[in-house]
């Protein structure tokens, strides 16, 4: 899965989220093409004005959203508990929730749980920040300048086509198995969705609006801040969300291969020692951390959309 080329990986990213969480076409026609090449990003239906005055439906109520979202996880947990304690599946294949909990407590007491979570999160954040920053800059260059497009697009397209795992041996040779190689790999993972989506979105900013901006004397940087940037904000945010999912994906890839700490290491190490409870623990932690960081970007998205769109 991790070695899929970057195009398909974007799809993976999209699947990581609930599809409705990724909003590309917030400005309606203005940026609906924004996803351009990341065509797998489904434009959400236009967010209707959430009934001020109109009677609020059940699905619009906050408590229902929270309760509704919790139904399946709770059901899963119950089924898991039932199946593992009833002896239907041996605990060596499916540890009970309690065993996973105890494994967590055990690791926490040794001071490893916090360390692993912290180091993995740190890698993701640093790699994501670097990759997304480069992605924004290069995406802007390619999306705004015809020359940048001509010079950079083919090369970046080719690099994007390299399966992510192909980088690993090279990165390890060049940078060793310390932090650098992992962070670079994660940055590569975060770079491409941002670059691709931002470049496409900038290229497709409504030409009518651009012309109006120019007709009223805007050019260069002023045109960028007044028209192009606000027009692509929704796309930029969905790009960041995809990039964050990618960053977690690449983190595990990096840690599976060469590391002595982190959740990916916990996975390999437990696999080698047959500690299935810890494998479960690592997977659950990855799910929770991924969801939490995504929710963070989601909050930022809500703010930005209210401000810009």
């Amino acid at each position, binding site marked *: 899965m991790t070695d899929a080329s970057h195009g398909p990986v974007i799809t993976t990213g999209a699947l990581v989220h609930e599809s409705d969480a990724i909003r590309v076409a917030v400005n309606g026609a203005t940026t609906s093409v924004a996803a351009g090449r990341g065509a797998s990003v489904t434009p959400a239906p236009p967010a209707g004005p959430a009934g001020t005055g109109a009677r609020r439906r059940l699905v619009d109520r906050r408590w229902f959203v929270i309760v509704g979202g919790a139904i399946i996880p709770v059901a899963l947990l119950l089924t898991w508990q039932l199946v593992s304690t009833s002896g239907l599946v041996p605990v060596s294949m499916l540890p009970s929730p309690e065993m996973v909990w105890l494994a967590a407590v055990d690791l926490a007491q040794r001071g490893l749980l916090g360390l692993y979570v912290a180091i993995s999160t740190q890698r993701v954040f640093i790699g994501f920040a670097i990759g997304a920053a480069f992605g924004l800059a290069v995406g802007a260059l390619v999306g705004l300048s015809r020359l940048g497009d001509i010079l950079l697009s083919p090369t970046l397209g080719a690099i994007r086509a390299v399966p992510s795992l192909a980088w690993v041996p090279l990165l390890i040779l060049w940078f060793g198995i310390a932090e650098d190689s992992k962070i670079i790999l994660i940055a590569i993972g975060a770079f491409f969705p941002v670059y691709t989506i931002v470049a496409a979105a900038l290229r497709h900013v409504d030409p009518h*609006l651009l*012309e109006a901006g120019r007709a009223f*004397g805007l050019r260069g940087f002023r045109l960028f801040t007044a028209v192009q940037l606000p027009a692509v904000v929704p796309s930029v945010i969905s790009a960041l969300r995809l990039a964050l999912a990618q960053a977690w994906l690449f983190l595990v890839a990096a840690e599976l291969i060469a590391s002595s700490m982190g959740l990916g290491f916990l996975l390999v190490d437990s696999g080698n020692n047959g500690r299935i409870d810890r494998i479960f623990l690592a997977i659950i932690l990855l799910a929770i951390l991924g969801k939490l960081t995504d929710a963070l970007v989601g909050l930022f998205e809500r703010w930005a959309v209210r401000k810009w769109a």
Partner: protein
Amino acid sequence: MTAASAIARDASAAGRANAETAAKSSSTAATRTSAADAATAATGTTTAASSSAAAAPVSLRGIGRAFASQSGDRQVLRDIDLEIAAGEIVAILGPSGCGKSTLLRIAGGLDQPTQGEALIDGEAVKPFDPRSAVGFQEPRLLPWRTIADNVALGLPRSTSRAAGREQVARLLDLVGLAEFAGHRPREVSGGMAQRTSLARALARNPAVLLLDEPFGALDALTRLKMQDLLLDVHAAEPATVLLVTHDVDEALQLADRVILLGHEPETPGAVVTQTIVVPGHRPRDRGSAELAELRARLLDGLGIDRHGSARGIETTTTIPHYPY
């Protein structure tokens, strides 16, 4: 006769209740006065901001425009010669798709002609010429900005913040959108968006004002109000105005001269088929017999049966001197 009473006549002709008509016409009269006030005040601020641009003459010389298409070039405009005096209002009429917007865009430097040249004040029009302001056929408002901020986009760069805010408030008041200053474009109607777009163009206070069907999306009554508003602003701040419209009456009410674009048989590209000098001073009596004759002639030129024959009105083929 005042415009207000002309509206009253139109309204009663449309069979409205007398009381309603009276109310409407008096409110129109009120708008007119406040519009005139505001326009005068607008002059005050703009001079203060030292961005007041005197009206400039516009020359279109042998303009032609061909668009590349799969089946070779397609000539849209051909041999358009037009001298517009400073401060003149010229209306461009013509059937849909004949190239009115294209001509306007060429005059504003938004498009380049394939033949001929466009000049403002004797100088070639530059790309996105700062001497002109455009009111587009579609409102083209920035969806993430409030109505007020969209109007502010039109302000000349040199305007100070405070003067700008005042000017925007005044313009919004003028186009009747003061209450909607804080709304987003998607929260206002099509006609309101179009008025915002007009206010944005007016905010520029340009030497040349290019308006592409600025009142197309407005209801009949608002349209009349906005026409009067445009005349008031023009009286206070005489820019050269090039106005594209589909509405023959609007052209006759507003313009010094009406240009009719159309096709000659067997040749590609639209040319000026008629130039009509509109007699009388503005504001004109919307119901005068003289205008009715011109109206019939223009409708005829547009290929619409006028149901009668117009006599005694000359069509000028040479360009007359201004003022007429």
